[in-house]
């Protein structure tokens, strides 16, 4: 865990005081809605269909048990007893009142949690791998660098009114769990031939109405130059990004219009002028941030321990174990994914009681640490394998042990038309119905890894372009219709899905998805060939023929 110190606490208290003053000025009429809106957005406050929504950042996806319990408290006290985890390591409360928001934020600030820069045209919450610091695959803990960026970007005087929002993601593992190629800036931490730590820098990725996979503008940036290079990118974007059209204001459009090479050249020129200035990260500074991350005192243990081997005799536990437990860097430990995708429940939602259960598990077995991943599940990153049976029993009792991680029912979905003021169509009930169709565990296990992503509008909060199966809700003559894409992926081989065919109605979607899956089961070369690989091998045509013949 990174531990906030008195500076961070003072800052958060000052921010809450400022927001309290802004809310008071809004309620008194001293601030108009037009003036207030960007201020509330920069504190994560939206106005949705039914109420205000508060989006709270979970920086680089890391939460302490005390922080998670406080989120549960806010859900109970100021909302309707639940929260929604998003694809960008945030949590959203859907029913909060403007007049209560300063108090809710003060309650969060006490444990170092806030909604700062979770919206607005600024640098948003920096996201990373939810397995950071625990997976054996990584070159360094990416959260060190995410934290440096968090500090750098917080209330940045120059970059608080950018042309549009700006999202940065970091991966430190070759296996990209942070979707870095579809971010405004994606950072891939690795070591060069000399063993030096640095970043490959990708710019201009993103989804929305004009999706792009990010382009590499620098193969290796020594880590000590991270901030100066980011500042150079931001400065070029802030001056030259389009401001005449909100739909063309993201950095991806600038990069596309002038070309990645020209963009990189402008950045490099700016960077030359500042690289050795005040933003240079000395070894001392990096070591200081590193020292603020506290790690569990791991003692290697038996791997696997006898207790685990015995427990695996229970088929229900074995199902969950096979699906939800991943290798840890230390022998005898494990990473546990906690599914927030119970069959028939809204994807990514957790009740206050469930949050408390997970917080207690983190206290009892996981060094008080919880993670949130972009797949809208939680994670206990550091647990001893011998504790897995006890953890499973408690998760199971709380409805948190559905063994469907990475299965077709582990669906990413935005809030859609049921909550969101921007949406054109519903997403959550579509996900619920698809999950129900595939609730049979044998069937879903036989299908294997398959990511379904659903967005209720072109803004693509459900990342539909990069779902193995992507579903986009659109509106035609007042009716909900859905476009289906196949073959998208968000990982290190990121690519955008290909449109399957004409949009279908709300009622037709689950059946169509079943047809797509049945087609895959027939066409796959062998049971080891994943859905995404079959689509890559055959293209969408065979799917299209089969699916539209049936409908």
């Amino acid at each position, binding site marked *: 865990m990174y531990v906030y110190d008195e500076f961070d606490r003072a800052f958060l208290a000052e921010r809450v005081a400022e927001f309290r003053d*802004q809310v008071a000025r809004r309620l008194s009429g001293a601030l108009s809605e037009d003036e207030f809106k960007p201020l509330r957005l920069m504190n994560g406050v939206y106005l949705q269909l039914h109420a205000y929504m508060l989006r709270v950042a979970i920086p680089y996806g890391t939460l302490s048990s005390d922080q998670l319990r406080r989120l549960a408290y806010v859900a109970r006290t100021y909302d309707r007893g639940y929260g929604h985890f998003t694809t960008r390591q945030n949590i959203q409360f859907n029913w909060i009142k403007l007049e209560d928001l300063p108090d809710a934020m003060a309650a969060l600030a006490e444990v170092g949690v806030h909604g700062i820069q979770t919206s607005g045209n600024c640098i948003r919450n920096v996201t990373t791998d939810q397995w950071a610091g625990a997976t054996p695959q990584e070159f360094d803990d990416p959260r060190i660098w995410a934290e440096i960026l968090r500090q750098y970007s917080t*209330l940045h005087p120059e970059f608080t*009114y950018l042309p549009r929002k700006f999202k940065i993601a970091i991966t430190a593992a070759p296996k990209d769990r942070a979707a870095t190629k579809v971010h405004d800036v994606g950072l891939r931490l690795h070591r060069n031939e000399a063993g030096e730590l640095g970043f490959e820098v990708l710019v201009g990725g993103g989804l929305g109405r004009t999706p792009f996979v990010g382009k590499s503008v620098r193969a290796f940036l020594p880590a000590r130059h991270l901030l100066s290079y980011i500042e150079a990118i931001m400065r070029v974007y802030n001056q030259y990004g389009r401001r005449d059209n909100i739909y063309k204001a993201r950095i991806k459009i600038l990069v596309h219009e002038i070309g990645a090479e020209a963009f990189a050249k402008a950045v490099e020129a700016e960077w030359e002028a500042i690289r050795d200035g005040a933003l240079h990260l000395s070894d001392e500074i990096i070591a200081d941030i590193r*020292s603020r991350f506290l790690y569990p005192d791991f003692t290697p243990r038996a791997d696997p321990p006898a207790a685990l081997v015995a427990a695996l005799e229970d088929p229900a536990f074995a199902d969950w174990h096979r699906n939800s437990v991943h290798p840890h860097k230390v022998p005898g430990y494990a990473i546990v994914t906690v599914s927030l995708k119970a069959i028939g429940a809204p994807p990514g939602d957790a009740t206050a009681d469930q949050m408390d259960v997970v917080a207690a598990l983190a206290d009892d077995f996981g060094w008080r640490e919880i993670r949130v991943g972009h797949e809208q599940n939680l994670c206990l990153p550091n647990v001893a394998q011998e504790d897995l049976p006890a953890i499973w029993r408690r998760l199971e009792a709380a409805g948190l042990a559905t063994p469907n991680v990475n299965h077709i029912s582990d669906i990413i979905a935005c809030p859609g038309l049921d909550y969101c003021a921007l949406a054109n169509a519903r997403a959550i009930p579509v996900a619920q119905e698809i999950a129900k169709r595939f609730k049979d565990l044998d069937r879903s296990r036989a299908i294997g890894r398959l990511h379904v992503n659903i967005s209720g509008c072109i803004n693509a909060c459900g990342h539909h372009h990069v779902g193995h199966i992507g579903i986009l809700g659109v509106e035609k003559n007042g009716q909900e219709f859905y476009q289906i894409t196949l073959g998208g992926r968000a990982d290190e081989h990121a690519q955008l899905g290909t449109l399957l065919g004409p949009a279908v109605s709300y009622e037709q979607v689950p059946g169509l998805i079943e047809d797509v899956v049945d087609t895959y089961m027939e066409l796959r070369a062998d049971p080891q060939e994943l859905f995404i690989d079959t689509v890559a091998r055959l293209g969408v045509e065979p799917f299209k023929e089969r699916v539209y013949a049936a409908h």
Partner: protein
Amino acid sequence: MRLIENGKPVEDRFVRVSDDEALPEGAAVLIGIERFLKDAEALRERPAPVGVIWPNSRPIAEIEPYLGRIALIALNFPSFRDGRAYSQARLLRERLGWTGPLRAVGNVLRDQFLLMQRSGFDQIEVSKAADADAFDEAVHRYTVFYQPATDRRPSLLRQRLGRSAPGVGE
């Protein structure tokens, strides 16, 4: 409009003159870039100070040849949501070495004062009287600054050095 300079309300000694108006004799004037460039030679002979409103759309580096002849630079915020002038201000101060007065004009509101001050503006032309009255409060809202900017406050990354991390060794 109220003008604040280095935190204090001041009288504006510059007269803003549009492109087709005659320049008032002997007065300090603030003019647009088109006129400044067109009349560059004539203005050079003028005994009174000349200030320039530099547009957001023109790279700020292009102002460099004229810096010696300018008494005031004004940067525009067409909307408070348009942040191009923050980058222009920092470049003027940190790259081009401008030490003269730098004024924020346009849709300038209280909630942006601190950002402007940190980016190098020393003059702020405030749209609302109530905001001008709240200037001091607005720029002292925060005691913690995470990143270095034109105001040369040390970044928190540096300020923390030498202090022990909380929780370590407990």
